[in-house]
């Protein structure tokens, strides 16, 4: 039964047309997009309720973590010294990085905080996670029991991905990577919705905001274009052209007008082969011809999302196989989780190949294809060096893609009892492995909070080693306040103990 009532469902005209003639090519989920009934509304509400529970657990540990010293306190020192416009303007003329709106966001929250830095910056981090989970569920549109059953797994992948950890364990004060996750997920939400004028405007504003916040914000353009190419018409052709002009304009601005450049090999360490290499080593290996290193980084970054190996460019698990060294428990969990999840995704791609050949795309197809586009583009943006968190946008779309693929797997195929039991065991193993990874992220955030408190406890010693000192009275006052926040006003929770942690630490 299909109800004519619609909530946020896209109109049929937004999908590629289908007819009784090609009905066999259309997944059952296509009919599911035609409308919602009371039961599906209940499932949608259940999905949001579950999402709220998932956020509560993470919010608890996020609010236990103080603003960190390096790249946190040190970034905040300059925020009160310039006006918003002066600060943003001057950030256009930095070397290697073009991130003026990152400074702008930090400045705005800093001014709004008016001295209550812990509450505002840590609170904003929690709000970001909440918004991400809401966008995640909006994109999935869970309306049946199978969709809702796939959601806990999807959220476990979202929060448990190794690419996600860096968006929550670092309190910069504003985690830039998390901001870009919101921008890319928001872009997908705009692109996959019903066409309206405001979406065009929102798309342009969102792209400009993301691109000028951090380099990976350029992925917003990739999301819009990939969605458009798969038939999504949330934004118009004109908006896509405008976005493309802006995308090209970014490079003209960065390299032609401002001459900002980009980070070179000497900027930071990066993994290669079985271990991490420092900048000098990288220059010695690739200085004359860095393209091989860049290619390695792109491929490594893509594989890392699909199989959790390599990690930050280092093939640790492979090395253990080669050397016949036992895997750690987290490595086993990661391997099982990623292999099964990517397997489910590959099954979906295989099953839908005929429809894709005739360009018949449904919402689930679009999500999977947007993931493919973001994965490749995100990998390309990581050419300079590999780091798990740099692939976090691809990680979010991986979670979305695996979730829709799982919903498709568990929701529609009639099977014999034996096949169903085997499939159920595989799904349980996958769900359990991702659940362990998601819990591990909570533990990692808690332990990161403890580590940050140690930084604050030994701040004087750290400043000495960095040959820094807060001579400016305002900087000194800020330092004292943040240290008091971390040590006295928001003291740490007890350290966790027990063998069970060996399953979680080092994910």
């Amino acid at each position, binding site marked *: *039964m*299909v*109800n004519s009532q619609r909530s946020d469902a896209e109109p049929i005209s937004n999908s590629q047309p*289908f007819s*009784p003639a090609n*009905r066999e090519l*259309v997944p*059952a989920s*296509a*009919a*599911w997009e*035609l409308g919602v009934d009371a039961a599906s509304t209940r499932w949608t509400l259940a999905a949001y309720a*579950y999402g709220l*529970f998932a956020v*509560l*657990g993470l919010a*608890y540990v996020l609010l236990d973590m103080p603003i960190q010293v390096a790249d946190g306190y040190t970034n905040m020192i300059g925020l009160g010294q310039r006006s918003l416009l002066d600060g943003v303007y001057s950030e256009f003329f930095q070397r290697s990085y073009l991130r003026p709106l990152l400074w702008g966001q930090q400045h705005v929250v800093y001014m709004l905080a008016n001295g209550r830095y812990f509450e505002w910056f840590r609170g904003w981090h929690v709000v970001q996670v909440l918004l991400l989970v809401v966008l995640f569920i909006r994109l999935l549109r869970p309306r*049946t*029991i*199978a969709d809702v*059953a*796939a959601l*806990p*797994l999807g*959220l*476990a992948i979202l929060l448990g991905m190794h690419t996600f950890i860096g968006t929550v364990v670092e309190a910069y004060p504003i985690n830039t990577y998390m901001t870009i996750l919101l921008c890319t997920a928001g872009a997908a939400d705009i692109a996959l919705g019903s066409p309206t004028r405001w979406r065009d405007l929102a798309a342009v504003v969102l792209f400009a905001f993301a691109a000028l916040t951090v380099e990976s914000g350029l992925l917003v353009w990739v999301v819009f274009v990939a969605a458009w190419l798969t038939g999504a018409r949330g934004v118009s052709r004109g908006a896509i052209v405008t976005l493309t002009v802006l995308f090209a304009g970014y490079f003209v601005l960065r390299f032609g007008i401002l001459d900002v450049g980009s980070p070179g090999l000497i900027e930071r360490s990066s993994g290669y082969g079985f271990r991490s290499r420092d900048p000098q080593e990288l220059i010695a290996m690739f200085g004359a011809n860095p393209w091989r290193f860049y290619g390695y980084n792109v491929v490594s970054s893509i594989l890392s999302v699909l199989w959790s190996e390599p990690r930050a460019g280092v093939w640790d698990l492979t090395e253990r196989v080669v050397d016949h060294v036992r895997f750690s428990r987290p490595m086993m969990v990661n391997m099982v989780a990623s292999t099964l999840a990517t397997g489910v995704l590959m099954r979906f791609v295989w099953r839908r190949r005929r429809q894709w050949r005739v360009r018949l795309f449904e919402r689930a197809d679009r999500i999977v294809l947007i993931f493919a586009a973001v994965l490749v583009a995100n990998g390309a943006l990581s050419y300079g060096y590999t780091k798990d968190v740099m692939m976090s946008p691809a990680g979010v779309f991986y979670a979305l893609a695996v979730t829709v693929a799982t919903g498709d*797997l*568990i*929701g*529609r*195929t*009639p099977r014999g009892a034996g096949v169903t*039991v085997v499939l*159920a065991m595989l*799904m*349980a193993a996958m*769900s359990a492995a*991702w*659940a*362990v990874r*998601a*819990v591990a992220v*909570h533990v990692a955030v808690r332990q990161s909070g*403890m580590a940050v*408190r*140690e930084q*604050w*406890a*030994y701040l*004087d*010693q750290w400043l000495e080693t960095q040959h820094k000192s807060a001579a400016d009275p305002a900087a000194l006052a800020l330092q004292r306040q943040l240290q008091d926040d971390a*040590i*006295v006003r928001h*003291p740490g*929770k*007890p*350290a*966790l*103990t027990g063998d*069970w942690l060996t399953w979680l630490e080092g994910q």
Partner: protein
Amino acid sequence: MTSTAFSIHETRPRASTLLIAATAAPAMIATMLVLVFVVFESSGRTLSAIAPANVAEAAGLGLGGETLRRVRMGEDATARLSVRPEIISSSVKSVTALEAAVFARQVELIRMFDRHGSIADPHLRRHLVCLAADLDVRDIVEYLGAADAATCRPGETRAAIVQR
């Protein structure tokens, strides 16, 4: 409500309850476990954790932040306090926070105490150097004064602490 040729509920087979449960249950259980942990900790009881009962235990666990907090709240780093067997070892039952920091091999803690003026007394400083020498914590010996370590009787300071 109208029925159409594409009605999902007419053409789509029923999802397997077993598959649905197998997919959803592990991840949901993990979320529930996290929330149970949060509820317990919010009510004052942290599951599977060790919480320091005093500044000596905090130092013995090597917790710089908690140690500093307790010092700022007025706890005395030079006072002998009872510590549980799992903090340092079953043979060490009563120590000062300064001694506990040496047992924890935390030169950063010793430096922090020094900055707070807790090691101003030369006798106390020598006592800590001798303990660090007994435990072979070289960075603490070097920080507090390697010259003093030469005057220590090997093993004596540690034995005295164990006998308390």
